[in-house]
């Protein structure tokens, strides 16, 4: 049976451009990152990007996205869009949320896949849902994860939880 163990977390007490989990222990099988985010972008939503081991060019992904009216898919350039946060002109006090799953993050013989499922909350007809299949294209064990506001700042109350999974 899989066991979730909280490795580290952070709930922002002031705005921040990015949040980094560094020196991630290699004692688990998989990692799960859960984020609840809102940014100061002058829009209803903004794209959040993630990269590993402080190297954004090594991450690639395909995504499928729905906005309540249409569905799109694509292959964004690195660092890749992974999910969308609620933002400044969206419904007040709402946060987008996302879960990123990173299996076999300590494997040093193969590249690392990851998946993400995220939704942006906005109490209007347009709100985004994103499903991402990603790849960290190196054989280095993942010991660092950067969650980047892509030019915008995460606002106070945004939260980030990193879990380790044993015996997944």
């Amino acid at each position, binding site marked *: 049976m899989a066991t979730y163990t909280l490795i580290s977390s952070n709930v*922002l007490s*002031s705005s921040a*451009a990015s*949040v*980094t*989990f560094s020196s991630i222990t290699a004692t688990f099988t998989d990692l799960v990152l859960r984020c609840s985010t809102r940014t100061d972008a002058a*829009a209803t939503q903004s794209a959040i990007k993630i990269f590993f081991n402080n190297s954004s060019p090594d991450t690639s992904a395909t995504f499928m996205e729905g906005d309540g009216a249409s569905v799109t898919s694509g292959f964004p350039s690195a660092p890749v869009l992974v999910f969308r946060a609620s933002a400044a002109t969206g419904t007040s006090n709402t946060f987008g949320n996302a879960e990123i799953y990173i299996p076999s993050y300590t494997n040093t013989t193969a590249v690392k896949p990851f998946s993400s499922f995220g939704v942006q909350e906005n109490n209007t007809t347009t709100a985004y849902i994103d499903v991402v299949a990603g790849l960290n294209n190196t054989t280095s064990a993942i010991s660092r994860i950067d969650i980047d506001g*892509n030019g915008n700042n995460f606002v106070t109350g945004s939260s980030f939880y990193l879990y380790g999974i044993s015996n997944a």
Partner: protein
Amino acid sequence: MPHKVIVDCSTGITTEVELTAEEIADQVAAQKAAEADRKAAEVVAKDRAVAKAALLDKLGITAEEAALLLF
């Protein structure tokens, strides 16, 4: 001054670090690029909606009726 948060998972210690001038420049550039992407996506979505409405009008069917043809 904008800053970034670093959580050291080995110690549990969280530090707030001010962005360097280079990082601030990168942040401004990323913000501009993201805004350009967002506006481009809005144009594409608007054009698509207009084209869809025109096609439905040409076919003389509703969006619900068109959806029936897809499944």
